[in-house]
């Protein structure tokens, strides 16, 4: 019954002669909410970038949504990410010159599609995030929590199969962080979306289906 969406085997990543990820093998099932914890500098972010196709490993294999991402070309991976993956970052990374709804719709812009449809889809998601009144605001006018909810909406707009989140509450106060977590759990449950979340907050990690702990580049 378990249906793995992400399978990584013997992943290694070194920067010059510094080994950051050492022989990691793991597997995520479809619909799972997995948190990855560990001390700062233990290699969590690096591992996340290897698993999500943002970075190539020095050695090892990654199969994501059935695709061998090690062998794919750069533009193939871009299209692959557009179709299957959503990202949420600690510092939101909204585009400062785009309004809230344009930020949400940004993954759709390269797609041949009517602007009206893009906007409709973005507005629907923003309303679900309780941001229906913030459509035309620039990121600079939004609070941290609002920014992160715009980012979540952006991550969801392509109906991805998996979301990678790197410390999504790291720049937020605990109360706002809590509500972001609730949102993530909600989409995980409602849409059967797989989520891999990096955090160094053990309490947040505890609410996940499964917690992986990383130390010195190794999953314990």
């Amino acid at each position, binding site marked *: 019954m378990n249906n793995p969406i992400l399978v990584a085997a013997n992943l290694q990543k070194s920067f010059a002669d510094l080994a950051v990820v050492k022989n990691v093998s793991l597997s995520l099932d479809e619909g799972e909410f997995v948190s990855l914890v560990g001390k700062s500098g233990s290699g969590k*972010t690096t591992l*996340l*970038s290897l698993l999500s196709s*943002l*970075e190539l490993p020095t050695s090892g294999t990654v199969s994501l949504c059935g695709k061998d991402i090690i062998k794919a070309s*750069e*533009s193939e991976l*871009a*299209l*692959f*990410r*557009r*179709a299957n*993956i959503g*990202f949420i*970052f*600690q*510092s939101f*990374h909204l*585009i*400062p*010159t*785009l309004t809230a709804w*344009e930020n949400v719709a*940004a*993954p759709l*812009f*390269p797609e041949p599609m009517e602007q009206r449809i893009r906007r409709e889809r973005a507005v629907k998601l923003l309303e679900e995030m309780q941001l229906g009144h913030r459509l035309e605001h*620039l990121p600079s006018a939004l609070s941290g929590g609002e920014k992160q909810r715009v980012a979540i909406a*952006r991550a969801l707009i*392509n109906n991805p199969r998996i979301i990678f989140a*790197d*410390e999504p509450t*790291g720049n937020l106060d605990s109360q706002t962080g809590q509500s972001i977590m609730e949102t993530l759990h909600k989409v995980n449950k409602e849409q059967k979306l797989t989520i891999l979340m990096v955090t160094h907050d053990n309490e947040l990690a505890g609410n996940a289906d499964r917690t992986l702990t990383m130390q010195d580049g190794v999953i314990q």
Partner: protein
Amino acid sequence: MQLISVWREIRLRWRRHFTAILGLSIGLCLLLLLNALSNAYKEATKIPLQDVGADISIQRNGDVPEELNGVVFSCSAVTIQHHEIEAIRNMAGVRSVAQAVLLWVFQDDQFAMVLGIEPESTLGPGRLKNYMVEGRYLTNGKEALLDESFAREQGLTVGDSVAVAGQSFSVVGLVAASQAPKMVVAHIYIPLDEAQAMATVSEGVQKVSPFSSQDANVLFLTADQEAIPALSASLSEVMGKDTAISTPDTFLRKLGTMFALSDRFSAAVGLIILVVTFLLVFKTVAGGIHERAREIAVFKCIGWTNGNIRKQIVSETLAQCLLAAAIGTALAVIASWLLSLHTLDIMIPWEMAPTPHFLPGGGEPVFRTVHLPVQLSLPLIGIAFALSLGLGAIISLFCTNRISKIKPSEVLRHE
């Protein structure tokens, strides 16, 4: 994608874009003006000849009269022989030729400049038709037109007769010669063949410059515009180097300004402006990509290909270049309007309007004052837009090569 975001991009990062857009628009404005101004000078210098409906005027320099008595030639307008005139008429590029005979006539302590003109011609002195103040224009026969102030001084009017070198002409009209083109200014105008006959029998003329009844001493030519430079060269060859062949170029050279003088000057300045604006736009686009590396990495994360991002940046740059071209053109329109208020004095050398030295104002050059015809032609504006867009396209296509070097994982760093 999103050209709506371009304006926001400019507004929110105005510090970066402002200098480039302004710089580019000023550069384009200067290029437009440089070109328009150099054209304006060229056009302006056509005006003195256009005033008499001609493209080229021809006179031959000779000796001064031995005695200022009776009928003589000015030293700046001696005989051009009939066969020479016929040869000119047949030269390639020549459309029409008008002849005139300019005489200085001294009689009983009186002096008059007499111009013999072809009554049926509209070219050269034929333009006098537009300056009639009284009576009618000349026809062949013993008829004369008088300059109105000369007529007033002499107490003559239409219907009277005037004596020229012992012959009597009836005054059929008065012209405002002071307002007429300087090149055809005289006191008395008579039919060409009368003036030719007068010169033929004049001892004073024959001693200095043999003249027969079919000759003339001033020619006005119309010619094909493209043929003028070549024509002017072959004319001086045929006529000898003592001949003054006046074309718009002659006046241009007399003006002596940078703009008038050399296309090379304009080309050099234009090139400098082009290089400076190129560097400015290059710096902005390259700097923009550098500054937005993180943003570009975000686009890569969310599934934009290098091509998608390149397309976005190229179209942003093109939109800015379009804006700059529009601003530059607007600035140039305003500036050229201001410049066209400026007047220019084009010197008409004494030789071409030879008033004797003993007359008031004689011996001094006269000027034709014109407004500089500074005009931005549509093709010129089109070229400015094309230049701006071409610059933007080349630079942004080149700079966006860097995009592929930005790794999407950069978005995860330095948080």
